[in-house]
């Protein structure tokens, strides 16, 4: 929208609410910025900044969506008469283009919950009269907190400073309390890291192992099959450097140039030049290598550090071959002089890359299964519609060791309710499912056995013996009897889930023991299974297609997904309760497409 839209009544009302206040001066009226297609309102606010270097009155630019009171409201400091440092809860406060009178350091004024997209009235006014005013209040409170140094107060969640990132590539690592303890025992402050590209996604690189500067193996990251399978010839070796604390410039700004980084390094007696030159000798190949900068971080402000965080940057290409130094003898000393001039004589920007901690608990902070289930090796019998959906939920929830057993192959007709896709038709269901699950979780180690359990010999596969949680999604009586013939070394959680016609009833049986209690299963589930069978007899079953006598089982994808979700719920409950035996049934209420919920029955 290059052309200015109509100045709406709502916009007029919103900015009028600021007029005539003793602590706000409107420095102009709303003007349309065609560059960014937002309304711009320059204003001066007074805030309680006593006993700080911040002035009482500061100038700001407020950017308001044309659909106000909807849309976003951003607050930027003015180039003159405002703050020039970068504070916590603020984007990197660089001056930005000379043509615009505001700086880049947008403030984060929303509360934690509002940033999630929740629209809770008490947290942020949403009406035209109050929303802009709310932001100005928030700005004043932000300034007061900045003046007192309370933007990151002890006890609040720790926040990394905003990094200027232009590169589309990103580096992922896995750091948690265990690796932090390991790092603390290591004397090394620099070395080499093994970086592998994420299969299927050329933008993501994962740190797979750390080596000392001399090349001694320090430790490997516990990734799943997806990253572990990447052959060594596809790995890259990049430098890592570790410092004592987060390299920061006052107040809470990330270093944007190599000069800045050196200044931040000096403050903690870190010899950045020395480290870089040590690496440069081994990186004179004319390409730009990545490097990692690590530092300890705490979960909350003021608390001890609990994990290592890594930043990644693209190094400039070091002097090599004939490139430099021109006219000088190509000695080691001259090359280093050239490199250091290149890095530090002028403000050379650091090309930061985005980094993410993909440690299991970090990656799954949005919703993880209980720990006892995540830590357990899971045996999944049956990779059909129900099994595949259950497996996917378990893997997304954090299960990282899985054995899938299914002798079938994927058919086109399966796909109406199966999580797999057309590219996998004709492939073993177990193998195809394992491959799909690998692409979901970087932690997952999965084994696929394309065989049936009922034909299992007396001595089961070692993987089957290893599993602590056994989930049966085959709806096959033979499988239950085969399970009963196996004896595990210690107590296991057995869980069998199936559904009736149209997935109208979900039956979940769980038991704890060294062997599956098949008699108990029939004693407790028999009547339900019999009822489902009678229902089946009343149903006119669909068929696979022309030319096949075999009927197929009717249940739509939405019904199967509901059944799978219920199965996971019941499984989680059983994993906590560890019952000797337990039966739960969930019967759908309401006629076919008039869904009313489920009636639960437990024994």
């Amino acid at each position, binding site marked *: 929208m290059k052309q200015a839209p109509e100045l709406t009544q709502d916009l*007029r*009302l919103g*900015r*009028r*609410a*600021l*007029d*005539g*206040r*003793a602590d706000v001066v*409107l420095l102009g*009226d709303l003007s349309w910025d065609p560059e960014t297609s937002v309304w711009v309102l320059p204003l001066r606010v007074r805030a309680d900044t006593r006993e700080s270097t911040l002035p009482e009155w500061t100038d700001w630019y407020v950017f308001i969506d044309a659909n106000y009171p909807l849309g976003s409201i951003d607050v930027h400091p003015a180039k003159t008469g405002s703050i020039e440092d970068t504070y916590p*809860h603020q984007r990197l406060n660089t001056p930005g283009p000379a043509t615009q009178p505001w700086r880049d350091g947008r403030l984060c*004024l929303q*509360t*934690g*919950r509002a940033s*999630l*997209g*929740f*629209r*809770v009235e*008490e*947290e942020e*006014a949403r009406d035209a*009269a*109050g929303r802009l*005013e*709310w*932001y100005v*209040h*928030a*700005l*004043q*409170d*932000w300034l007061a*907190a900045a003046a007192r140094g*309370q*933007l*990151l*107060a002890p*006890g*609040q*969640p720790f*926040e990394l400073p905003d990094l200027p990132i232009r590169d589309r590539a990103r580096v992922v690592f896995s750091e948690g309390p265990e690796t932090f303890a390991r790092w603390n025992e290591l004397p090394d402050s620099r070395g080499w890291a093994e970086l592998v590209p994420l299969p299927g996604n050329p933008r993501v690189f994962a740190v797979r192992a750390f080596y000392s500067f001399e090349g001694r193996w320090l430790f490997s990251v516990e990734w799943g099959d997806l990253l572990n399978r990447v052959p060594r010839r596809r790995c890259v070796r990049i430098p890592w450097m570790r410092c004592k604390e987060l390299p920061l410039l006052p107040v809470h700004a990330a270093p944007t140039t190599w000069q800045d980084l050196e200044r931040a390094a000096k403050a903690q007696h870190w010899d950045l030049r020395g480290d870089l030159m040590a690496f440069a000798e081994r990186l004179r190949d004319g390409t730009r290598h990545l490097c990692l900068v690590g530092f300890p971080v705490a979960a909350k402000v003021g608390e001890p550090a609990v994990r290592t965080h890594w930043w990644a940057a693209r190094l400039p290409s070091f002097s090599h071959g004939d490139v430099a130094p021109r006219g000088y003898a190509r000695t080691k000393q001259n090359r280093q002089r050239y490199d250091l001039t290149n890095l530090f004589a002028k403000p050379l920007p650091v090309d930061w890359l985005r980094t993410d901690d993909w440690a299991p608990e970090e990656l799954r902070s949005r919703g993880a299964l209980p720990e006892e289930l995540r830590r357990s090796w899971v045996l999944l019998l049956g990779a059909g519609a129900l099994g595949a959906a259950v497996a996917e939920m378990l893997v997304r929830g954090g299960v990282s060791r899985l054995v899938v057993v299914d002798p079938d192959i994927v058919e086109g007709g399966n796909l109406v309710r199966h999580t797999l896709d057309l590219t996998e038709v004709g492939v073993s269901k177990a193998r195809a499912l394992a491959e799909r699950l690998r692409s979901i979780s970087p932690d997952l180690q999965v084994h696929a056995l394309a065989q049936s359990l009922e034909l299992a010999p007396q001595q089961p596969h070692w993987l089957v013996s290893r599993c602590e949680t056994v989930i049966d999604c085959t709806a096959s009586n033979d499988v239950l009897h085969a399970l009963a013939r196996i004896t595990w070394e210690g107590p296991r959680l057995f869980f069998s889930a199936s559904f009736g016609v149209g997935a109208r009833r979900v039956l979940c049986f769980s038991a704890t023991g060294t062997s599956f209690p098949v008699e108990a299963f029939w004693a407790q589930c028999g009547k339900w299974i019999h009822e489902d069978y009678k229902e089946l007899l009343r149903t006119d079953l669909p068929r696979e297609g022309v030319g096949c006598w075999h009927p197929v089982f009717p249940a739509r994808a939405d019904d199967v997904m509901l059944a799978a979700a219920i199965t996971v719920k019941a499984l989680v409950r059983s994993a906590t309760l560890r019952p000797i035996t337990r039966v739960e049934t969930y019967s759908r209420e309401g006629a076919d497409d008039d869904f009313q919920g489920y009636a639960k029955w437990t024994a």
Partner: protein
Amino acid sequence: MGAGNNRRAHRDFRTMTLPLHRYFEDFLHDIRPTPSQIKEMREGHARLRERLQADTALAGGFVSMFLQGSYRRFTAVRPKDDSRADVDLVVVTKMKESEFSPAQAMSCFKPFLERHYKGKYRQQGRSFGIEMSRIDMDLVITAAPMEAEAGTYGELLKAEASLSSLRLDEDFSSEPLFKSDRQEEALWKLHPLRIPDRDLGAWQDTHPLAQLSWTHRKNDRCGRHFVNVVKALKWWRLVHLESLPKRPKSYPLEHLLGDCCPDGIDSIAEGVVRTLEAFVDNYALHAAAKIVPSAEDRGVKQDVMARIDGNDFAAFHEQAKKAAKLARKAFESPDAQTAAPLWRELFGGKFPSAPEGGSKKSFTPHEGGSGGVDSGRFA
């Protein structure tokens, strides 16, 4: 009180007051001529000019036509109750005063008006009124200007020929009324034009461009707030029409306001307050004696107040006194919540009301992370 004292008083006066710039901006936005009126004005003006230029009978005698009056000076307000707006147009001709009587001069235009505006026009004392759906055009015929000045008027026609250059007040009251000082200088120096007065049977002086030029200069001296002060006070008159005498109104009122408005005002609010107060002070004796102050037109020797009655003026003065007190009280209010109702009493419902006292809830640092969400939707 010396000059120094005055300056100090002025400074105090500024720190304790509430100019409410945005309230006045929004108020003015709502009392300016509506976009549809402006559109019809542009179209009516353009069509009339085309017809005048195309008319074979008049072509030889037609020099120029230009917009004048409050629309030209950006001091027009939207007519109240959706009545039609009056637009004044001056038609400069080549008719010599010595060869045409006022009645003859006017009758020259009748065939043209019969042809294009049959049943929509009527002859008035000094002009023709043309009635359109949302506006009335007032056509003033003038005699030939001095030979040397005909060219300047011709240029004025050219300048107004493109529609976009016909600028009517749409939120650019802060822009200068002239494109360049040279243009202004040239127009200012022109001699008065002569218009026929049918009732007097004589040619009269008029100098609309001098009025325009004076307003332009005054507006500059008043921080570009003057035309807005005039509009606000014209609106005050419309809102209180019932308690006010019929006159003074339109240009005579604007003229008096121009005499009263102090230079160097910093806001419309300040202009309104101080203009009303100066009006009350300056004309207190006139009002007491029930005589009308005389005011000479900006361009010609003529009393613009000639048609106003002394009793009317006294009654008007009485109301202005009340308005001045109210405006002062509003201007010195501590906050918008107190001021807005007072301004609304003065200017009616078009002046925006203040929102109720703002909420104090705002930025709370992230406490306890993202957990414990109370309510809301999520996808």
